[in-house]
């Protein structure tokens, strides 16, 4: 029930691991969990495609770091660190279904509810492949350690 052991920072991995690079955020957070003892002030959450769970996971945190596959007009495999104020959504959604998700809208709702952490950082990774398959494309797989280093550096201020 309510997480009384909630740590001030949360790293959230998003995406669908059945659609190759779409799952990069989940793959990264799984790799970070393995070294979680380096980051005693950080919770790691794998939220997959449960968009609204992001809202609840942000509540009560000082800092959130979100890892996701992002289409941002960069070469495949590129990683960019940004905050939500630096981007506008390119999605056009008809609003037919709960299954459509726009992370930026969820972040806006969190802000509106007064639950938005003081710092929210996104690491976006441009996909090389969104084909069906449960492994990353060679392009992203080759850069995986680089992504982990960049994200870990973001968490360093909380490292033991």
């Amino acid at each position, binding site marked *: *029930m*309510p997480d009384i052991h909630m740590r001030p920072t949360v790293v959230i991995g*998003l*995406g*669908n*691991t*059945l*659609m190759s690079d*779409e799952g990069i955020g989940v793959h990264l957070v799984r790799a970070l969990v393995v070294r979680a003892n380096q980051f005693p002030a950080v919770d790691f959450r*794998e*939220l*997959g*495609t*449960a*968009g*609204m*769970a992001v*809202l*609840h*996971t942000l*509540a009560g945190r000082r800092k959130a770091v979100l890892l*996701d*596959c*992002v*289409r*941002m*007009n960069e070469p495949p495999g590129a990683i960019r660190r*940004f905050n939500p104020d*630096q*981007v*506008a*959504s*390119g*999605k*056009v*959604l*008809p*609003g*037919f*279904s*709960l*299954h*459509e*998700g*726009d*992370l*930026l*809208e969820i972040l*806006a*709702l969190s802000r*509106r*509810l007064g639950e938005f952490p003081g710092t929210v950082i*996104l690491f*976006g990774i441009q*996909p090389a492949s*969104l084909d*069906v398959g*449960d492994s990353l494309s060679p392009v992203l797989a080759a850069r995986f350690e680089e992504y982990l280093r960049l994200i870990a550096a973001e968490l360093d201020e909380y490292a033991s």
Partner: protein
Amino acid sequence: MTEKSNTLNIEVHHVTRIEGHGNIVVRAKDGVVEKVEWQVPEAPRFFEAMVRGRSWEDIQTIVSRICGICSVSHSLAAIKAIENAMGIQVSQQTDRLRILSHYAEYMESHILHAGYLVAPDLLGQKSVVPLAASHPDLVKTVIGLHRLGNEWMELLAGRMTHPVTFKPGGFSSLPSEAQLRDLQQRLVAGLPELEKLAQAVLSLADRLPAFTRDTEYIGLVDGQSYTFYHGAIGSTDGKETVPVRQFESVVNEYVSPQSTAKWAKWHRDSYAVGALARFNLNAAYLRPQAAKAAKAFGLKPKNCNPYFNTVAQLVESFQIVEHALEIIDAVLAAGVKSETPKVAPKAGEGTGAVEAPRGTLFHRYAFDEKGICLKANLCIPTNQNHANIQKDFEAFVPQIISRDPQEVRLLLEMLVRAYDPCVSCSTHFLDVKFV
């Protein structure tokens, strides 16, 4: 949308890069409807290819990723099918805790649907974000209930979504009795919040369009409860029931030249699944507060107004909380027993069905003697509803064609939203422009 003097031309298109969302197309001239279409590409079948060649022990993990909203339903349908194929029996405790987990998904999904998709329509807002400014109390109630659903799910399924505790034969970890008692208290506290949401929707219920079309409704029935998990396939068109292993004889998928998605039909040229279908089939078995909510909305079987699917979802929200409280009582009375599922694979074919929030979900798998999946067939609720949405459009558009084009568009969008189709769940990646 464009409007000329005597021509109505509505096209709600979602341009997609991956697999497509639904489109609404209406063309009319001089008040005569020339074209009405609900267009949806075939829902992805590639998940079936993905589980072929995989171990029986991996199936649930894979299919739970099909959907972020219905991951418990997909997991349970798969596990039931695996158990059916391999002759695995589960304990009463497992059965009860699975139903309890399933209800957590209902809480999340129904509350989100009513609060995030339908309430903005009824209150004239584009989405829940502006609604949070105009109606903060309502949004807080919705989010509080959804958060309760999330925590409920985390307790039983081990995660807010994509369950990790579900295994063929049982659970890999169990909640403690203290945790179940805590959940019970929180559910009791949630009932007045649910009442608030129901009252808010009730006060707007006259804004739900008064459209009815006689429809065949299909869902699981067991003749003794408002079932979401057990039972055979029933229809409002007859008393016969069909075992879930014969679901193909109910679904009868066919191709229509009007649609890119396959359609489904049983006794007529379309049918509907989902909350309103379950209500129409099983309303006699509602718990007291759920029955009271239905009465407050004037919802009686058989209701054929698709917009009332949302009302049926609210009624079901009471039902699942009331039944969850009883289940927790029963589990606590028996005492939570540690169980380690020990099952061995064997060759066979099996089917599993559950009521997902959007309707009846079927999974079928065949395995070899090592438990390697040889074939799979997944039939999702949304595919069963497409033909019915189309038939609703065909009946409704001529009734409203003389109205303002913006209103026609909104009414049709609301109609689609009432079904809450699962049109694209597999990719959620952000698409951004740097500003």
